[in-house]
């Protein structure tokens, strides 16, 4: 059983941080949404895609020691919530640094990386991670 379509349909959002903006209230969302939770039905057909810059700061973070099976080789790894320059909070990994260098407020930018693989010979799934600026 292949998971290709499941990941393929999100690739635009995961590769280029494409979120959606509600043209009714102006709020920007990431992950993308079809319905604005503020405007609800007023937002139908008014959600327009918009790419985020990938820049932001660490809003909260943790160093994971008891990780998911797929990420065992990376333990300990950093998971963070990033407050983007444009507003939305995004959850993801911070990589290429020592965990001690990460603080709430640290400036980061997004980068495209391999995230996980579908078994030994399956497709490689890519997506955003963050690095310190």
């Amino acid at each position, binding site marked *: 059983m292949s998971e290709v379509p499941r990941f393929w349909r*999100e690739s635009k959002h995961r590769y280029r941080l494409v979120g959606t903006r509600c043209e009714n209230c102006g709020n920007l969302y990431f*992950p993308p949404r079809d319905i604005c*939770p503020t405007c609800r039905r007023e937002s139908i057909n008014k959600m327009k895609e918009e790419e985020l810059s990938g820049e932001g700061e660490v*809003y*909260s*973070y*943790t*160093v*994971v*020691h*008891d*990780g*998911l*099976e*797929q*990420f*065992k080789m*990376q333990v*300990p*790894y950093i*998971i*963070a*919530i990033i407050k983007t320059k444009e507003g*939305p*909070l*995004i*959850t*993801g*990994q911070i990589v290429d640094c020592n*965990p001690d260098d990460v603080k*709430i407020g640290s400036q980061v930018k997004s980068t495209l990386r391999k*995230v*996980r693989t579908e078994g030994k010979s399956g497709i490689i*799934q890519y*997506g955003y*991670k963050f690095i310190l600026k």
Partner: protein
Amino acid sequence: MRDVYIIGVGSTKYGELWDMSLRELASEAGLKALMDAGIKAEEIDALYGANTSAGQFIDQEHIAALISDYSGISELGIPAVRIEAGAASGGAALNQAYLAVKSGQYDTVVVGGVEKMTDVPSEVANEIIGGSLDAEWETFFGVTEASVAAMIAKRHEYDERVKREHYAVFPVISHKHASMNPSSHFKNVIKLEDVINASPVAEPLTVYDTAPLSDGASAIVITADKKKIKESENPIRIKASTMANDFLSLHDRKKIDSFKAVNKSVKEALKQSGLNLGNIDGYEIHDSYSIGSLIQMEEIFGKEAIKMVENNEYYFNSSHPLNVSGGLKAHGNPLGAVGLYQAIEATIQLRGKAGERQIKGSKNMLIHNMGGLGTTSVTTILGVE
């Protein structure tokens, strides 16, 4: 509208029960609840089964039908349905059963919860527990449920000047209480230093900040049948049952270190029961993570919650007894069952049968069951008349 009462409770031991299957656990708890209620299967109008993830833990769906069948009641044709709301499945099933009885559709209903978690290795169990998060935008990137709790803790310390000790104390309280509960997963007493210095899971949280993987099942019988209530030795009234929900993921919430849904469901439950916090004699909350306990108590008591930590008010013999059962942390955490064990503990307390961990003169208990970190919130208030 008619009143709904708990007339029977039954539970298995909680723990790593290698020799018991899901169906055996569930039917043991159900049978105990029926015996306690003093009723026969013919008197049951419906079965509500709570389970979080048997599909992933043991490759079994259609849980309610299985439990009904293995419990030997299939010939009776009793409707059986499974309710799933993450780790709030038990509370949610109780809520649904309560509504069905309150409405007059059914008179007597069995609500059971079960989880069989130790048939898979712990890494796999972690992955399955992560199923309560957003698979596409959290777990895909390596997020575990513990890491979500940890990020709440980090931000809460940063924004509110909360100290590590203010939440590391909750597992200490739960272990103390579990040591007095015969059905507990853990019976050892621990110290604050043990929690802080244990091996890290997701910093700052250690293994002692998190609830274990447990097997177990719990069931209760509820009724609005006047004859059954009258014949019951110790009927406990469900004075309120409410639910509320929030965004699935932290990153979509305006404040990540608060549980808005908890505030809403607790407020509505107090209103529904006509009680205020001064009338509540004990609390069972969802202590899957220590920081989650603090945030829940803050949603109920505001900033007082921290003072109550500092004044040691959460012990069974103090002013705000909390998780006198031992909580999920130490009594055990079989996901789909815990919401029902909370109701069982409250019932035992209100019957005055809790032995050495008895809350003296207990008249009303508030229980809070949660799915995810503040995503699904179920509040139940139980009381004697």
